[in-house]
């Protein structure tokens, strides 16, 4: 099941050329080259420790690359880090909303930081709460919500300021399959309204949900393309099989 | 016995691996003693004195010279206006002022008697009293030298400062400082060690092992006891070499008492950490429980006899006080167990009680 394909402006939303990051003697990200088109849902797959999070941190302006180039939303990651941050949303691997604040308060904080007006904050927060069905617990501390709801909330807050690109790092980790499904519905809604989504996951079945995907193994991109293309090229029936085949020699 | 040895070996291995932390842990007390030993003093010397000389004459000049020559004072300003004193006090420029009257020499010569006023900034009442006495002593010395009709009587006092002949206040504070520094070390070491294990879950692994709670506690305490003992020895050496604090009594006894004290402090640390499950709260309690009581209630700086009764009682429950008495006794007075058996017993009892309490608190806490 893949989402509708999008066409948009010709410059890619994200592009990386030979992007590299070293930590001392260890190369976490080894000259990766890829691009993500506007409105795509791009899957950034790989095993734990393959370098996905490091790559994302470089693209979101949290980490300086050791080599290579990259542009996000048209801005250079080396020199225009702050400009990038204005145009993107981010959901980190660790749950990073404030657990002692309520959903409403979290939304208000981030809305304010992204310079939304009071009215915008109010309206969008109501919409968000209604969409997620969280009205009843809108004023309870977030720590009281079960994990699945928290993840959905984090995603919605990341989208609150309607960024053109959103980075999701393992957003469905530890979440039950039903909630995962609901989560991907949210991702499709975002994509449908034109948001570019780069999502990392180690659940290979989620790969089928993406427009295009890449597979990282030990810091390198070993495969990139649409799910259908990749399965045909490598003669496998699922992305999971493809991953096992690619990861084995490593 | 073997499970215990295995635990000991594991702890030792952890500690030896983290050399840098070990170095910091040992350097810390040494640095603290150096710093605080130089800073925590109460000797009054070279006190800042202002002299108000409203009409300088031969007598006032002589008296001023006496003050200038005195070791106790350092003249910071001489002014003709008494009103200047207040400003000097407020700015902290002067600690005391001597006001010399107009016609001083004349009054002295015709026997009318002269009046000198000593004004002291008594914001710090402690220094205040001492400055009064010092200033008076200088004036009396001046008085004795003036030709006089009557023959003055002089009762001279030779003062012997027992147990602190050099009269350096550092001799008093350094033994107490040792207690302070050792407690911080001990409580922090255990609190961190145990709580970290609890949080990372290895405590469960230990508990399902054949080790009984007692063994676990001994196993965890012993390596840190060794570290603490080494730290104590370093501090004793430092006290001797850097501050020349006398060590008249038995070094062995002092070291033994130090070990006992560290044991009590470690036990306190364990007890603290069995009561909390979060490192943060453990730290907070460790700090609140060690810093305040050990600065104040151990007699380290402020004498316990000066405190109100409820606090004096509370102070008796703090191991710090007992060790300070022991350290001072052994180092300054050179006495041994025949005078110090009571304090030793109490310290030992505290250690035992705290260890037992932590062993008891250990098991149910994690069920």
């Amino acid at each position: 099941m893949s989402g509708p394909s999008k066409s948009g402006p010709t410059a890619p939303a994200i592009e990386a050329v030979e992007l590299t990051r070293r930590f001392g003697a260890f190369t976490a990200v080894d000259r990766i080259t890829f691009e993500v088109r506007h409105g795509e849902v791009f899957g950034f797959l790989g095993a734990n420790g393959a370098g996905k999070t490091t790559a994302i941190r470089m693209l979101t302006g949290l980490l300086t690359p050791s080599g290579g180039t990259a542009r996000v939303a048209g801005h250079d990651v080396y020199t225009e880090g702050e400009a990038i941050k204005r145009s993107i949303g981010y959901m980190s691997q660790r749950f990073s909303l404030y657990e002692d604040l309520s959903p409403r308060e979290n939304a208000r904080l981030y809305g304010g930081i992204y310079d939304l007006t009071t009215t915008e904050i109010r309206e969008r927060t109501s919409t968000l709460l209604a969409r997620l069905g969280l009205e009843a617990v809108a004023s309870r501390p977030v720590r009281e919500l079960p994990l699945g709801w928290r993840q959905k909330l984090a995603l919605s807050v990341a989208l609150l300021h309607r960024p053109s690109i959103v980075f999701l790092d393992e957003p469905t980790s530890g979440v039950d399959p039903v909630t995962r499904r609901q989560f991907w519905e949210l991702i499709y809604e975002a994509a449908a309204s034109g948001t570019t989504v780069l999502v990392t996951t180690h659940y290979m079945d989620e790969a089928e949900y993406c427009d295009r995907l890449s597979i990282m193994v030990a810091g390198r991109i070993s495969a990139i393309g649409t799910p259908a293309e990749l399965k045909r090229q490598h003669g496998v029936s699922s992305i999971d099989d493809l991953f096992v085949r690619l990861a084995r020699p490593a | 016995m073997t499970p215990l040895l295995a635990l000991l070996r594991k702890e030792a291995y952890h500690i030896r691996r983290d050399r840098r932390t070990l170095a910091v842990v040992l350097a810390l007390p040494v640095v603290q003693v150096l710093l605080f030993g130089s800073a925590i003093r109460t000797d009054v010397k070279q006190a800042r004195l202002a002299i108000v000389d409203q009409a300088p004459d031969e007598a006032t000049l002589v008296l001023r010279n006496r003050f200038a020559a005195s070791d106790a004072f350092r003249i910071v300003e001489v002014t003709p206006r008494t009103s200047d004193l207040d400003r000097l006090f407020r700015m902290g420029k002067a600690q005391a002022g001597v006001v010399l009257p107009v016609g001083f020499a004349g009054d002295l010569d015709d026997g009318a008697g002269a009046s000198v006023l000593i004004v002291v900034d008594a914001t710090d009442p402690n220094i205040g009293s001492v400055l009064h006495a010092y200033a008076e002593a200088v004036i009396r010395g001046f008085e004795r030298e003036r030709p006089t009709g009557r023959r003055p009587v002089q009762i001279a006092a030779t003062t012997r400062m027992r147990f602190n002949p050099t009269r350096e206040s550092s001799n008093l504070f350094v033994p107490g400082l040792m207690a302070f520094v050792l407690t911080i070390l001990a409580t922090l070491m255990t609190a961190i060690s145990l709580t970290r294990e609890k949080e990372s879950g290895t405590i469960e692994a230990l508990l399902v092992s054949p080790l009984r709670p007692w063994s676990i506690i001994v196993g965890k305490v012993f390596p840190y006891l060794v570290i603490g003992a080494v730290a104590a020895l370093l501090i004793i050496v430092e006290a001797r070499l850097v501050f020349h604090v006398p060590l008249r009594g038995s070094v062995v006894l002092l070291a033994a008492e130090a070990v006992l004290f560290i044991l009590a402090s470690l036990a306190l640390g364990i007890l603290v950490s069995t009561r909390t499950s979060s490192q943060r709260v453990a730290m907070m309690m460790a700090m609140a429980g060690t810093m305040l009581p050990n600065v104040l209630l151990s007699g380290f700086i402020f004498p316990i006899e000066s405190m109100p009764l409820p606090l004096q009682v509370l102070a008796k429950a703090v191991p710090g006080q007992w060790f300070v008495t022991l350290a001072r006794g052994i180092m300054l007075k050179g006495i041994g167990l025949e005078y110090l058996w009571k304090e030793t017993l109490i310290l030992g009892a505290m250690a035992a009680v705290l260890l037992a309490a932590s062993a008891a608190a250990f098991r149910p806490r994690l069920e």
Partner: protein
Amino acid sequence: MRRALYLAHAELLHVVRDRATLMQVLLVPLIQILILANAATFEIRETSLWIVDLDRTSASRALVNRFAASGHFDIVGTTPSLEAANDSLLRGDTTLALVIPDNFEAQLVRTRRSEVELVVNAEKGAAAGIVQSYAATILGTYAAELAGPAPPAPRIDIRHRNRYNATLNYRHYMVPGILVALVTIIGTLLTAQNIAREKEFGTLEQLNVTPITRGQFIAGKLVPFWGLGLVELALGLTLGVLVFGIPVRGSVPLLFGVAALYLLVALGIGLWISTIVDTQQQAMFVVFFIVNIYLLMSGLFTPIDSMEPWAQVLTQLNPVRHFVAISRAILVKGAGLADILQPLSILALFAVVVLTSAVLQYRKRAA
């Protein structure tokens, strides 16, 4: 700046909802003030005195009576030999032993000069010095009496005045300083802890990925704690006035103005600490260690004038030292802006340096 306000609002919510933090902010400081103010004193009640009268003449007995009647001493023993006195000194039961030699009266009659020995138990620290000056005063007065009726001779009448603290109340000296300690601990600890916690939990990363600037981030984080610090000061001051009756002779707005500046330094230091640690627990440890040093070397407990010269110079780098001096000057001495200009400018300089380096050191992007 709107962003900073949103962040500040969220911070306040955190503080109010976190029980541990609330306890730190409200309860612990209050307890600290109560205990500290009561315990931190060098005041001596009645000093125990041991008399060894080897003369037993009317002159010696008269001298002993002077001591007894002075109100400062409590005679705990009278023996004809030195042994018992020594023993009592060793046991720490006596602070002062007065030894009158067997030719006391005879010498006085013949030469108008005699000697006594004061054996002071210097273990008692600062008390020893004061006790000695009391004794010296009593001896001096007695000698003057013996000299006979007022002669036509240069006699100097020495008057004493205690400025700012006529009752020699130690609390008036300590509480203004303790307020500073409180405010320092709160400001530095909360800031360091708070940001370290965000690091630990990952919420800091989420903020780093937003367009919020370093300046806005720091403003949003610090402002709530800055406000809290001032509230603490107000609470503490009220407590000090109501419970301990400390004087408020200077301008309260001036005090709070200085506090507002000082807090910037304290908070800046907390911020700096948070950039070098990874966890809350580390933050607490570092804060504890640094604040400890600051407090013990600030002239809060022991006077700066008594420190080794190099240590005194070092204290110029200690912001606590300056605020303690200012606090005491304003509250106890009624100092005004002109009087505190020097320490105040140093604090201002610190504020600029600390905040600037904290801002520069804070990185939204890891290198």
